[in-house]
């Protein structure tokens, strides 16, 4: 079972390495959006510090939306998805493998880049740590929830817009608690509560999202 999971992850990572441009699109989008705000707003430290959590989190959310469309569509087009559905493996396991690889490729670089970008907003080292941690807990949840939308809109024209419409409402709690954690730390309230909520959302989506995605894939493959 673990062998299958590992094979899927390794397969998708190999494919990502051979198609690097797709990977960098998401990361560059994130970097550009986050870097443009300080330039547009001007060097007002207090304002920047105030908007930092929200800006970084909104950018992370949009970047992960941007990457979603390709999660299943490429496999759908060349018929490998159909083959995966016909293997004697639980579809939820395949979904989990694909989402894991997807997060490693599109989510993890954002998480690692965020503290560096946060410097532009004059965040304290501690706040940067909380930002990193909140993204580390939040972005996998975004990928998992997004996978449901990506699976549902498979093979539809203009699927990209539809995915955003379907998935964004579900992602809002992640945004609120993610940005909230950093804000709470900056204002000295303590970030524990928010991070616990993020952890809970991640666990919940880890259990439920693959099941929903598997069901959606079966419908879309018809």
């Amino acid at each position, binding site marked *: 079972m673990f062998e299958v999971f590992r094979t899927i992850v390794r397969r998708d990572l190999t*494919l990502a390495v*051979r198609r690097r441009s797709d990977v960098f699109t998401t990361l560059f989008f994130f970097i550009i959006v986050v870097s443009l705000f300080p330039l547009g707003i001007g060097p007002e430290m207090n304002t920047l510090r105030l908007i930092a959590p929200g800006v970084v989190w909104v950018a992370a959310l949009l970047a992960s939306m941007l990457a979603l469309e390709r999660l299943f569509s490429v496999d759908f087009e060349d*018929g*490998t998805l*159909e*083959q995966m559905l*016909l293997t004697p*493996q639980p579809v939820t396991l395949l979904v989990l493998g694909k989402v894991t690889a997807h997060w490693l490729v599109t989510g993890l670089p954002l998480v690692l880049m965020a503290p560096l970008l946060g410097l532009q907003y004059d965040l304290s080292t501690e706040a940067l740590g909380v930002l990193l941690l909140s993204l580390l807990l939040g972005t996998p949840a975004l990928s998992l929830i997004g996978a449901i939308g990506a699976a549902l809109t498979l093979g539809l024209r203009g699927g990209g817009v539809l995915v955003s419409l379907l998935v964004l409402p579900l992602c809002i709690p992640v945004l609120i608690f993610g940005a909230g954690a950093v804000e709470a730390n900056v204002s000295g309230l303590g970030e524990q509560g928010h991070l616990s909520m993020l952890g809970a959302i991640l666990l919940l989506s880890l259990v439920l999202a693959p099941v929903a995605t598997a069901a959606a894939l079966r419908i879309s493959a018809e």
Partner: protein
Amino acid sequence: MLEIADLECVRGDRRLFSGLTFSLKPGELLHLHGHNGSGKTTLMRAICGLIQPTAGKVRWKGESIRQLGEEFSRDLVYIGHKNGIKDDLNGVENLRIGCVLEGVSITDRQAWEALEQMGLRGHEDLPTRVLSQGQKRRVAMARLLVNRAQLWILDEPFTALDLAAVDFLQSVIRSHVEDGGMVILTTHQEVSLTRGQVKQLQLGWKEDGNV
């Protein structure tokens, strides 16, 4: 044994076939006939379980494939119009990943040998993106050489293949049937497999399908 009972499929608002009943025993080959759009692919996908039929049942060894689920997948190989191979991976990688997912373990060596038998010597480690249509089809068909599934469902297996490959594939299919396997295939080409001792099924919208 594969049993199709009273199967009906509707695509869009057109009924492709209804009341379709037949069975396939080990050592039998079923050749599906029918003009374009008569529902051959739909029938094959319904047998695989990729499409939920509007009515009727597909049974494998006496049990509904819905209940069997992954058990049934273990006994099945389906190769459709799409080759189901990744363009950015080479033949060996494609074959090996496919095998792990199917729960068959093969060594690197076996994968190389299978591809070589399919006439891809010297192309095994090229990304399939650079191969021709026929060569891609050969990579897809190499799965048949390493798989031990009993039921093969092949949708137009001979398209894009040259004569030598068609001959080879026919011999592979023939020996599978002789070893007690079951094959369902469609082809518009007249090949020796599709004549003689095989079951024929004609699909069409005028009459309901029957064996």
